[in-house]
Structures are given as C-alpha cells and as structure tokens.
C-alpha cells in the first residue's frame, strides 16, 4: 500500500516539475498580435525586425506574442475576451464586428492609419496542378464540367469572402463591360440583370466545391497535401508560399485577368492597450509596418506593399499587373458586402447546398 502511495506521489512530483517559469523579465514590453491564417511567416520576420527597431529607439526589449487562425474565428475570440493589443485581420468587416459587438475600439478605427489601415494588400489568384491540366485561365473556366474548386468557408474565413466577392465582381465586369455602371442610377436595370447572372455563376461555382475548410491555410493543405481538387482559390501570398514551400514542380499560379484588391487591415484594441499601458508601443508597432524596411519585408513575403518604391524591384516584378477592383467600388464597402452576401439568409446561404454533383 505504502509503495503505491510513494509511486503516485513521485509521478505527481515529476509532472509538477514541469510548471512553467512564469516570471517576466524587467524592461521587457509585451504585446499580443491576433492575426489571420496566412500571415504566420510575415509576422514571424516582422516581429524580429520591430524588436530590433524598438530596442534601438527606446532601449527596451519587446516580446511579441502571436496567435493565428481563420480571420472570423480570431475576431470572435477577441470579442469573447482574448486580450489582443493589436489585431491584423484579413478584412475590415471582422474588425468592425469587434467594434460593434464589444466596443473595444472606436467604429472609425480604419481612419487611424494611412491607406485604410492596410499596410499591405493582396489579391485572389488560382493555384493549379503543374502544367494546368484542366486549362484554367479565367473565372469562367472554374465552372467547366469536371473541374473541382477548393475554397474555404466564407462564414469563418476572410480569404473565402474575398474569393467569393472576386468571382462576383468578375461577372459584373463581364456583363456590364464597365464597373462604373454599378454606381450609375440610370443603369440600375442593367446592373440588376448582371447581378442575377452573378448569382447564377456563384451558385454554379459552389457546386464545384467538394469541401469547405474553415480557414485559408486549411484549404491550402486540402489542395496541396491531401491532393483534392483541380484549382485552389487563394490569396496571392498564400499561392506563392505554397509553390515555395511545397515545390515549384507541383503547382502553377494562374492569374485571372480581373480580380479583387484585398486589403487586410490592422488596428489597435483601445481598451486593452489603455489598461495594459501598451499604447505607445502598439502605435509604433503598426506605424512601423509602413516603414521602408517593413514594406520591403512584406514584398518578400508576397504581400503587395502600399509603398512599392521601398521594396526590392525583383520582388515587385513577381506581382501581375492584372486589373483589380476594390470592395468600395463594386460592393459599396464591407458592411454592405457582408450583409448582402454572408449574413444569415444572405446570398451565400441562398445558393450554397452542401455536397456537389
């Protein structure tokens, strides 16, 4: 009997010896950056860059903690109490939601930094199997018979919402010839017909989707690792990264002639930084994203810098010059787009039926 007790005690002691050392070194600032899925590699490098800059400026060390996941899921976690000092998410609507649901930051947060608070942009491209066996060149090729398309779930993924809206904008542009007509009240009837066509196209597109992952990285893994599907609708940066990480001999990137300008914004969570006293450092952290060295880094990680003149020209040359439309010109901003397309009962709910034929 006593022996059992001793052994149990020893086991417990052994386990307890692993208690983490929680002390925090003095003179170290600490912030938490809650980000979306594909920025893992970018912020791993940027955090090192910023830590050097901050130490040079102030003599203080900084420890930047990172959390990554689907953009919508991450926003939900911040609303539920994940104490983020800054959020760097896939789209403005997710940060709007944090503001609306939790009052943790001002509704006009997007005016705090230049370029709609988006220090880098991206677009949506196609990643196909090597040699492009299904000959996919444009959006219309996605709904050819026998083509399987991989895109994540727009309810949880930011990238998936950009994919959906990019496809929608493609149809409007094809039907109208000029996207300016959308905001022209004389052309309302023509726009209405085009939107009907767009809805049909999107409905057909989702019929070609065998599985909806919850985040962009999950969708990439489905396509690249599990070998499902003929084409992945992906962030440009995610597509380049897949080719780089998983082999240029396996995939090709196809840039459609028209796509959406995706602006992933950044913001400070006011109530958290005021409580923790990290406002100064978080402001510097986000502002430094616009600095020449950070812009250069963003381009190296396949994000389109808002100041391309600071980046390596060879990095910039990798980005295609295809036509990009903005969410404001086609959809009248994220609030309207979200409400019309992704809210309960919106266009996605109307047209998506699980399973494909």
């Amino acid at each position: 009997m006593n022996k059992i007790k001793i052994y149990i005690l020893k086991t417990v002691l052994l386990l307890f010896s692993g208690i983490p050392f929680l002390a925090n070194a003095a003179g170290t600032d600490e912030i938490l950056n809650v980000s979306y899925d594909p920025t893992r590699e970018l912020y791993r490098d940027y955090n090192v860059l910023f830590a050097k800059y901050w130490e040079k400026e102030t003599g203080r060390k900084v420890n930047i903690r990172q959390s990554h996941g689907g953009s919508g899921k991450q926003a939900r976690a911040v609303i539920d109490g994940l104490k983020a000092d800054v959020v760097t998410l896939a789209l403005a609507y997710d940060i709007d939601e944090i503001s609306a649901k939790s009052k943790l930051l001002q509704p006009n947060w997007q005016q705090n930094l230049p370029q709609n608070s988006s220090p880098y942009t991206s677009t949506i491209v196609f990643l196909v199997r090597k040699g492009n066996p299904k000959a996919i060149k444009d959006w219309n090729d996605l709904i050819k018979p026998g083509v399987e398309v991989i895109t994540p779930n727009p309810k949880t993924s930011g990238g998936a919402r950009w994919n959906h809206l990019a496809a929608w904008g493609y149809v409007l542009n094809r039907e109208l010839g000029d996207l300016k007509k959308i905001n022209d009240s004389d052309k309302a009837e023509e726009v209405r017909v085009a939107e009907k066509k767009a809805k049909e196209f999107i409905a057909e597109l989702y019929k070609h989707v065998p599985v909806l992952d919850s985040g962009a990285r999950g969708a990439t893994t489905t396509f690249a690792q599990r070998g499902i599907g003929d084409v992945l609708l992906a962030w440009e940066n995610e597509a380049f990264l897949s080719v780089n990480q998983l082999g240029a001999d396996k995939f090709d990137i196809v840039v459609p002639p028209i796509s959406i300008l995706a602006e992933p914004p950044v913001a400070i969570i006011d109530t958290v930084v005021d409580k923790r006293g990290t406002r100064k450092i978080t402001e510097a952290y986000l502002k430094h994203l616009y600095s020449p060295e950070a812009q250069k880094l963003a381009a190296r990680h396949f994000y389109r810098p808002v100041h391309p003149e600071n980046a390596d020209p060879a990095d910039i040359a990798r980005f295609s010059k295809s036509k990009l439309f903005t969410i404001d010109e086609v959809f009248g901003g994220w609030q309207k787009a979200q409400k019309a397309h992704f809210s309960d009962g919106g266009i996605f709910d109307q047209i998506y039926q699980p399973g494909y034929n």
Partner: protein
Amino acid sequence: MFINILRSTDKRPGLNPPLIVNMAITVIALGFLFMFVIMPLIIVLKEAFSAGLSLWWASITEKDALSALRLTLLVAAIAVPVNLVFGLAASWALAKFRFKGKSLIITLIDLPFAVSPVVSGLIYVLLFGLHGWLGPWLGEHDIQIIFAVPGIVLATVFVTFPFIARELIPLMSEQGTDEEQAALSLGASGWQTFRRVTLPNIKWGLMYGIILCNARAMGEFGAVSVVSGHIRGETNTLPLQVEVLYNEYNFVAAFAVASLLAGLALVTLVLKSIVEWKTKHG
C-alpha cells in the same frame, strides 16, 4: 510454440473450438491492432526522424515546443489529481450508499462523455467569455479565465471528469459493503476502513482510471482548442502545437512533437507496469 498458445488447455467439450477458428480470431485481432495502433505509431516515428536525429532534437527543444510540453504537463498535473479526488469521493458515495437521485448523479458524471469536446469548450466561453455570464465581473476584477491557462485546465478537467469515477463505480458496487462492515464492526475508524480495506480492493481499477484520465488530459484537442486562443509559446498544448506546425508546412517538426506526445503515452504505460510489478513483488 505459437500454435501451442492458440490451443486451449481445457479439454472439456465445447470449450475447445477448432484450431482454425482460434487462428482466424487471433489473426483478425492482431491485424486490427497492427493497422490501427502500430502502423500509425510507426508512421509518426518514421516521419519524425525522417530528417535525422539532430533535427528531431532541435524540433522538440525549440522554445514553443518546450512551452507546449510544460503546459501539457501542468494541465495534466492539475486535472488528474482533481479528478482523482472527485472520482474516489463520487464512486465511494454512489457504490457504498443508497440515496435518492443516485442515477441522476451517475448520468451527470457521464455528461462529458456524451457531449462533443467542442461543445465542452464553448460552455466555458459562454460562461467566462467577455460577454458570458461571469465575463463582465471577471473583466472588472482583471481575472483572465478563457484564452489563458485556467480555461485550458477547466476544459481539460471537464472532459476527463468521468474517467476515474466511471472506472471505480462498477468495481465498488460489485465488491459491496461486506468487508467495510466487517472492518467497522471490529472497531476500525472510517479512515482506517477506507485506507486498509476499500483502497487495496480498488487499487488496480484506480490505477487504470488514472492512466486513462492522464492520457486524455494530455491528448485533448477539441475542447482545449476552443478556449486556448492559440497564443504561440503560451496557450498551445502539445496537440495544438502539432496542428500549428503542420499548418506552417513544418511537417518534420509536427511529427517530432507528435512523437513526443506518443512518448509521453508510452512513459505512462511503463509507469503503470512498474507499479504493477512492484506491488506484486515488493
């Protein structure tokens, strides 16, 4: 030799099925064991060491992997003793005494088995989240429960809740109260009865429950994933760290950390065997 094992030594008619049946059953059982237990384990180890021993070592001693290991051990070190105390108390009360509402309590103990782990996690978000029942009060007092270590511990305690109690209740019920009554009538105190009579009777069931509880506490993914917040090097347990690494195309490191998790499971098994051996021979 192998064939001899398969032959029943009992010569009574009807208890000795034909050799071919014995063999078929054995082959099926071993085949299943190989396909669903041994093969995946081999694949994990093969992938983990595919880039050499030094890279494996670098992967598991990396800062975030070590912190995930520490967190996993800490969570198990809290969840297992808590459930040990609860499991003993609950099964003692339920097996040795009669009272109203007994079956209701047993059903409640089973609840974590019936509920999906993701829902278990969400319960705590709804309870302790900023907009949950207790969230505003916790926020005022600056207490962080979810997206921090306490939330991960709570979720783990919840999902591992039934293991020890569920193991002991049938055992204790079967043993009845005769021996305890004898001890008490011979003048033993309640504590003496528990320590000298009840505990020795249930020790193997208890050990087994602890081992199951510990294995689940270390391996839990779903519930922990919901309440973790996924902060690198801080709120990622080993299973979450495996997912993070896999999602970062860091396959060797992902499998290396997975092999570490498998190693912990093996250590648990070895500990169990040592305790078994010591009790038999000591």
